[in-house]
């Protein structure tokens, strides 16, 4: 081994030199560091421990601040650790704490070093090794060093003891069996009055209680004492955290503790402690009216404070209260709303959450209006935060809180126009979803869609494309509600649509197709016979809007707004427009766009004849070609007018698998055969019936369900299919008969105050798809309740499991389990020591005998006399065997007696609770 020479050691760069060099940066940081690392690699192999340790120190620095790997030095760190000099040791421990972890290979080699230092007489060495242990302990280290830690737990050097207490947490975590050895001593430290020790031990318990609060219920009296007596805010905060966890488990404990906490809240001057009291009350004592009122008072002080920190925390506390006491939020509504324009984004988001918590069906319109105004003014990030929460809140439980859907749909339109809006996808989904679910809103929906489509400016905003695609779909699907379909055609085919991505372009073309068919149908099929048939009765309610359109303005109320403007002339123009707009798309690179354009143009070609013919002689319906075309129009129109309903996600699951169909077979080979075939989109699905119609070829690919046969034939086929598989169909909104057949799944009383729209919605959604809907769309309450039950069960199971968790299992064992042995052992031996002893006595170890180490002021009252080692050990063993399947309750009830005894002694207020009923007996003061 060619270590560095003496010269190298003499002129070794110290850490200070290294830092100075780094700061001067004569040769660039990276270069300098790699040079330094090279030196370090050399120096660290030195046999001289000083050189080695300096190298190690430099390496720590580079690792800590410049992210350089120091795992190569693991073994060298151990070498330095064995140095007799304290300063070397210190560096070694520092390096080890920073760089060792569970998979460091030399970790096991450290055990003996640690053991040596843990038993050292130098308290600083002990402290260093404890510190190190708290960082690197794994199962093996924790197991091997448990005895040393146990001894140190009652060391008479406070400096050492508090560290030993703190390290116990890690040891317990890694090696739960150590609980059996150390827990009792840990509990003893709870009674220590030295704030240093107390702070450490309370910290440990608050961490432990976080994981499994139930196990620590028996220690409640000790915690209570600390809470009442504590002078240190830090300790009080930690104890409050423990009580926040314990109180919900035991109402009597909550009863006792709530007063002291309120006292603390009134008296304390420290904001941190005050806030902890508030948080404890609102999380765990929310059923204590007076306490909550006091907490709310304090929250209000926080809210109006100048300090943004307090304001944030006040809002945060409010959001915790909101779940149980919504009135608190409403009381502070103004502050909350004002915080929406706070300069701090964190505060804004917190207040937004609160505002959303206040939303109900009565105020949703008002709040949304306010929020949209805020969204208009705020930065893009927060704007979308607002929009997102409006959308998710309003759509919750199938639009539970929405009463006025006309309003909501126009709000959606308004939101899409907000400049920063990036929620296009969600708005798109809701547009379509509402269209499918809520029949009565369709006219308004079409109006909103029209406004969006017609505005050429919107096409330039790529975030809006999704919204536009929904609008286009709506315009095609519900065109019969439109006042002026021709306008739609123009909007859908406007030149700027070239800005759209192909997938949305395809939707536009398809919608144009639908609108065109509707126009033709109105003009020739219906308009031919009776002029002025209203397309839908619902127009009447919209006649006031018709003023907007010059073409419509002359039309009488209730008369068709549609048929009037559609003349043969306009049809001819329309067809021209279609040809003009779509011809370029025949060369589109996107198959979908190309195909749909071709379909539409093919259709136009077919129709043209009719249009041209009838433009001359309208009544000449009997002409052969004209009849042909009319037939086609009627057919296609029928196909398009079939209404779509929402489909349950689980609908497919209801379809029985036909005989002879193997679903599980590997279809891998198929891929090679038809890998290049595009998957059909859902609406290009066709039944492909053979047909004698000669025109079939021209529109067999028109993306309609019934592509053949006469319209009534196809409808009857469909009807038959429906009849056979009615279960899998969702009733269309049109067929009132069907919808009446289904009993409404949810209690109408629940929806009592909803208006017609909402109840329609209820009907619509309730039909046939109730129980198996995807959860977030399931409106009916029963389903929700069911879900809750389902949710609750796993939780309960989890709790049971966590009980089996080794750490809490061990703790329980000590706190509860061994109680049943006490009556025999301890009571017979020491009738007056039933106090503390109970919890601990059972924990006997060999070391026990030499423990008379520290006992504090009140030890007279809680003197322990553990003279029954032998007996108890036997009991403990037995108990350990039973431990796994011991039912906690059983233990508790068996241990009731001594505990009650104790509580009487301790606090002179007897609790008159029959022992049988108490899950956690009267030790709770």
């Amino acid at each position, binding site marked *: 081994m060619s270590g560095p020479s003496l010269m190298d050691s003499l002129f070794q760069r110290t*850490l*200070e030199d290294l*830092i100075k060099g780094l700061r001067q940066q004569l040769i660039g940081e990276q270069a300098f560091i790699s040079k330094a690392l090279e030196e370090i690699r050399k120096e660290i192999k030195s046999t001289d421990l000083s050189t080695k340790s300096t190298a190690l*120190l430099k390496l*720590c*620095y580079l*690792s*800590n*601040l410049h*992210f*350089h*790997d120091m795992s190569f030095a693991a073994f060298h760190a151990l070498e330095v650790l064995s140095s007799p000099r*304290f*300063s070397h040791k*210190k*560096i070694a421990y*520092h390096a080890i*704490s920073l760089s060792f*972890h*569970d998979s460091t290979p030399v970790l096991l080699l450290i055990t003996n070093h640690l053991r040596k230092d843990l038993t050292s007489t130098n308290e*600083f060495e002990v*402290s260093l090794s*404890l*510190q190190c242990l*708290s*960082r690197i302990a794994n199962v093996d280290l924790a197991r091997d060093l448990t005895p040393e830690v146990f001894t140190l737990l009652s060391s008479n050097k406070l*400096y050492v003891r*508090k*560290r030993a207490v*703190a*390290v116990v*947490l890690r040891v317990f975590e890694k090696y739960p069996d150590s609980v059996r050895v150390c827990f009792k001593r840990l509990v003893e430290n709870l009674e220590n009055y030295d704030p*240093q020790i107390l*702070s*450490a031990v309370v*910290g*440990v318990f*608050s*961490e432990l209680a*976080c994981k499994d609060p139930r196990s620590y219920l028996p220690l409640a009296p000790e915690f209570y004492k600390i809470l009442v007596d504590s002078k*240190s*805010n*830090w300790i009080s*905060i930690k104890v409050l*955290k423990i009580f926040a966890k314990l109180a919900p488990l035991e109402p009597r404990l909550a009863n006792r503790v709530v007063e002291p906490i309120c006292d603390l809240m009134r008296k304390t001057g420290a*904001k*941190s402690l005050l*806030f*902890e009291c508030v*948080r404890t009350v609102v999380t765990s004592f929310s059923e204590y009216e007076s306490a909550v009122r006091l907490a709310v008072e304090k929250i209000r002080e926080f809210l109006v404070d100048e300090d*943004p*920190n307090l*304001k*944030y*925390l006040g809002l945060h506390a409010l959001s915790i209260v909101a779940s149980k006491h919504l009135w608190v939020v409403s009381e502070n509504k103004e502050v909350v709303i004002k915080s929406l324009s706070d*300069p*701090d*984004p*964190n*505060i804004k988001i917190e207040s937004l959450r609160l505002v959303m918590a206040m939303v109900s069906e009565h105020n949703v319109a008002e709040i949304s209006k306010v929020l949209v105004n805020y969204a208009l003014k705020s930065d893009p990030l927060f704007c979308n935060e607002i929009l997102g929460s409006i959308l998710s809140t309003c759509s919750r439980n199938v639009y539970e809180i929405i009463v006025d859907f006309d309003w909501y749909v126009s709000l959606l339109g308004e939101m899409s126009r907000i400049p920063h809006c990036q929620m296009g996808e969600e708005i798109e989904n809701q547009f379509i979803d509402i269209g499918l679910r809520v029949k009565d809103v369709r006219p308004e929906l079409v109006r909103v869609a029209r406004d969006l489509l017609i505005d050429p400016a919107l096409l330039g905003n790529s975030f809006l494309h999704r919204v536009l695609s929904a609008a286009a779909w709506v315009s095609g699907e519900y065109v019969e509600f439109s006042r002026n379909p021709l306008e739609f055609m123009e909007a859908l085919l406007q030149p700027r649509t070239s800005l759209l991505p192909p997938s949305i372009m395809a939707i536009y073309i398809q919608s144009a197709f639908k609108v065109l068919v509707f126009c033709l149908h109105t003009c020739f099929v219906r308009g031919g016979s009776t002029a002025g048939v209203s397309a839908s009765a619902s127009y009447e309610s919209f006649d006031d809007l018709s003023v907007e359109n010059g073409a419509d303005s002359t039309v009488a109320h209730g008369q068709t707004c549609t048929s009037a403007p559609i003349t043969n002339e306009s049809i001819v123009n329309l067809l021209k427009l279609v040809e003009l707009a779509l011809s370029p798309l025949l060369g589109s690179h996107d198959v979908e766009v190309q195909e749909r354009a071709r379909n539409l143009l093919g259709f136009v070609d077919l129709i043209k004849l009719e249009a041209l013919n009838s433009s001359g002689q309208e009544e000449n319906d009997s002409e052969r070609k004209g009849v042909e075309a009319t037939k086609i129009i009627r057919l296609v129109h029928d196909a398009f007018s079939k209404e779509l309903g929402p489909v349950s996600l689980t609908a497919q699951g209801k379809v029985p698998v036909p005989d002879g169909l193997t679903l599980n077979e590997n279809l891998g080979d198929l891929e090679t055969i038809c890998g290049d075939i595009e998957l059909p989109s859902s609406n290009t699905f066709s039944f492909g019936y053979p047909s004698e119609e000669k025109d079939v070829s021209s529109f067999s690919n028109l993306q309609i369900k019934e592509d053949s046969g006469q319209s009534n034939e196809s409808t009857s086929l469909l009807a038959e299919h429906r009849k056979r598989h009615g279960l899998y169909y969702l009733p269309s909104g049109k067929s009132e008969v069907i919808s009446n057949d289904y009993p409404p799944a949810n209690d109408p009383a629940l929806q009592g105050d909803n208006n017609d729209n909402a109840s329609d919605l209820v009907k619509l959604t309730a039909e046939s798809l109730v129980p198996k809907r995807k959860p977030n769309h399931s409106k009916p309450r029963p389903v929700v309740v069911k879900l809750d039950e389902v949710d609750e069960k796993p939780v309960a199971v989890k709790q049971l499991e966590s009980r089996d968790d080794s750490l809490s299992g061990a703790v329980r064992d000590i706190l509860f389990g061994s109680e049943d042995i006490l009556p025999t052992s301890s009571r017979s031996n020491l009738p007056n020591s039933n106090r503390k002893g109970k919890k601990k006595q059972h924990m006997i170890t060999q070391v026990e005998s030499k423990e008379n180490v520290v006992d504090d002021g009140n030890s007279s009252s809680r003197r322990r006399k553990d003279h029954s080692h032998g007996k108890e050990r036997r009991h403990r063993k037995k108990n350990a065997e039973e431990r796994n399947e011991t039912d906690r309750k059983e233990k508790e009830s068996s241990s009731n007696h001594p505990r009650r005894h104790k509580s009487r002694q301790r606090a002179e207020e007897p609790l008159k609770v029959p022992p049988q009923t108490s899950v956690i007996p009267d030790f709770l003061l």
Partner: protein
Amino acid sequence: MGIRFILMVNKQGQTRLAQYYEWLTLEERRALEGEIVRKCLARNEQQCSFVEHRNYKIVYRRYASLFFLVGVDNDENELAILEFIHLLVETMDRHFGNVCELDIMFHLEKAHFMLEEMVMNGSIVETSKANILSPIQLMDKAS
């Protein structure tokens, strides 16, 4: 475990001290520090000192050119952590006398040692300045 990490970062975003109470690889650390520093240093004086990040909270405070950032569990008391940061600064102030970034740079090991006196295993064990500093002074004398 209460406190998960303590960072000291200067205005330029360079880490001056990093203490983690859970093991993170160098890459994880680098990513974490980058994200946090970007998030916190962008905030101004009028904004609150708490930032939610991933599944925990960062409580930070600025002293002169140095940011003290403490990552804590969500249910940790934010105000208490602010007090802790202040205590840390006061302690270093008492030891170094008007502490500045350079003091921490050149005595990184000592700063770590002070932290170790105050925090163990992620929970605060010592809050008295005298108690924190006495072992350090003793060791200084010894060496």
